[in-house]
């Protein structure tokens, strides 16, 4: 049985996540959202490597940035699922 999201996948065996950038990252990258296609086994760390390889000015994104998946803090080893909202968070400065 196949996951029901499969029909939305851009290519067989891949998933698409919505990357979101905030604060300094958004300012330097000049964007705050970006759809990203990844292999269906991809982790957050894989997304980081793909972005650092392809995005202009992508060195603003460190090798190990803080990340959140679907509005929850997530480790770089966290697995991604098609349709996830993947946010990259500059060092937090709340309060």
């Amino acid at each position, binding site marked *: 049985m196949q996951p029901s999201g499969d029909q939305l996948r851009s290519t067989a065996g891949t998933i698409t996540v919505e990357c979101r950038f905030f604060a300094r990252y958004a300012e330097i990258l000049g964007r705050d959202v970006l759809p990203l296609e990844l292999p269906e086994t991809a982790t957050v760390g894989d997304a980081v490597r793909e972005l650092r390889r392809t995005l202009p000015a992508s060195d603003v994104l460190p090798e190990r940035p803080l990340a959140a998946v679907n509005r929850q803090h997530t480790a770089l080893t966290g697995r991604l699922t098609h349709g996830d909202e993947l946010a990259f968070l500059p060092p937090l400065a*709340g309060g």
Partner: protein
Amino acid sequence: MDYCTHEPIDVGRLMAAVADGARGGTVAFVGSVRGGPEDGPVTAIDYSGYEEMLTEELGRIIGEARERWPEASVTAQHRLGRVPRGEPSIAVVVAAPHRDEAFAACRQVIEEAKRRLPVWKKELFENGATRWREE
């Protein structure tokens, strides 16, 4: 009360929201925009946040405190947007039957908020300069 606001924080209203005749001790923490000698002439801070996550994460942090101190009533609010020097950017208020719990829960919530909330600040200086402040 919303966990995230673009208006000035009304600490008295937050305190009223947790008050109740059975909880004799209330502890409030209020964090304000600082512009003292060691900070340089900061006139305001522009707070930006990942608002949907900020609301969810602050809700989780408050939920953790309520779970650990079931008799406590806990609320908190983070302000986003331009906050002038001296005005509150965050407030955490806890009422509990006894002050030990109120202090402990308030402290846990502000520490977790500082550690986990997706919020960023850009300092505005008197001369018009701006700077991302990463602590």
